[in-house]
């Protein structure tokens, strides 16, 4: 081995001193007890560490039974939405130093979906609502042999809502969804928006019809929790309002 290989393990920009943080995690394991409990863990962390890193440290070094979902670790797969210090966030996108590590950081599962174990919730109801709004391009008539054209301006109309990673941070931050699990929820509306405002799509009015449901867009009370929670920075409430306005224009 050559000496130069040492350089192959770079350290993060600048040397950041380590510090300790306490995570107060809401634990629940139906195999052990029907009750959820709070449990504190203290771990050593560095400046660029995220909540996910801290959770991994706990799982890998302290308590292997701590259960949570994760995959990409950089905010693009939508696996690890959870409630950190009272707000929905992605664990992999939240730096410890940004959530005041001086006090214990509370970590809970997202609200409104049945908890399966620790930080894992049942995502089926969430995806079911998503599937209901016909989240696919609907067109009729002859397919062009080349691509369909779309002007950059038309493309821009739904750009924001194409960013959704279906993490459920929005839907599970919505006060209406907490108490009324039948509400379609912002994520489903965002994904409907993505198609309703796509100039190539012809299924807009069907989707509007679906969301005109008692549990559809009118359920939204513009509390903006969804917009605040969205890790992709999607202007969720704005999208919902655009859908509402489209319905009104259609009705009058």
């Amino acid at each position, binding site marked *: 081995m050559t000496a130069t290989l040492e350089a192959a393990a770079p350290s993060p920009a600048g040397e950041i001193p380590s510090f300790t943080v306490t995570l107060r995690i809401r634990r629940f394991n*139906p*195999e*052990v007890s029907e009750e959820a409990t709070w449990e504190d863990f203290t771990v050593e962390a560095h400046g660029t560490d995220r909540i996910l890193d801290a959770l991994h440290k706990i799982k890998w070094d302290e308590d292997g039974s701590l259960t949570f979902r994760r995959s990409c670790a950089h905010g693009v797969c939508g696996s690890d939405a959870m409630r950190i210090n009272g707000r929905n966030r992605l664990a992999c996108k939240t730096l410890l130093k940004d959530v005041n590590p001086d006090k214990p950081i509370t970590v809970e599962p997202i609200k409104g979906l*049945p908890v*399966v*174990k620790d930080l894992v919730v*049942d995502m*089926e*109801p969430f995806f*079911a*609502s998503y599937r*209901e709004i016909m989240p696919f391009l609907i067109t009729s008539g002859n397919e062009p042999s080349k691509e369909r054209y779309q002007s950059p301006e038309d493309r821009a109309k739904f750009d924001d809502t194409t960013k959704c990673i279906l993490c459920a941070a929005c839907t599970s931050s919505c*006060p*209406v969804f907490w*108490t*009324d*699990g*039948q509400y379609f929820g912002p994520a489903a509306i965002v994904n409907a928006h993505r198609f309703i405002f796509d100039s190539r799509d012809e299924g807009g009015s069907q989707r509007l*019809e*679906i969301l*005109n*449901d*008692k*549990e*559809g867009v*009118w*359920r939204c*009370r513009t509390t903006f929790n969804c917009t605040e929670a969205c890790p992709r920075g999607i202007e969720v409430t704005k999208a919902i309002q655009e859908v*509402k306005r489209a*319905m*009104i224009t259609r*009705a009058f």
Partner: protein
Amino acid sequence: MAHGTAAVAKVDSPRSPYVRRKTTRGNYELYSWVFMRASGVVLLVLIFGHLFVNLMVGDGVHAIDFGFVAGKWSNPMWQVWDLLMLWLAMIHGTNGVRTIINDYATRDLTRGILKGLLLLAFTVVVVLGTLVIFTFDPCPPDAPAELLASFCTA
């Protein structure tokens, strides 16, 4: 299966197949949403006018008595004003409370009962209020004169 472990109780499959209870489409929620906003704007004018006249002009609350009311309702403008305010506010408020019931009462039965009560309150108040405004006599013949408005000159 042979691979049983120390696991305790048998737990139900955590991933429930999920179905929407029922779909209800139609423009009802849409109209009610639009109504909330339209009535809100109108109410803003009506209520602020009402409050201003009742609480700010002259002696404020202390000026309110039978005579004051009678004085107002002898004017058809105020009659229409208050009638409109009554109706709009009641529909607006009732509809608002209906939403709230939908939000917090998750069981169908509870929802039903609460909405029934709401409807009852709404009907009673609106009917009563309307009757009062329309059948109101500013100068009831057998009342002591000092309680009446000044224009009730016997």
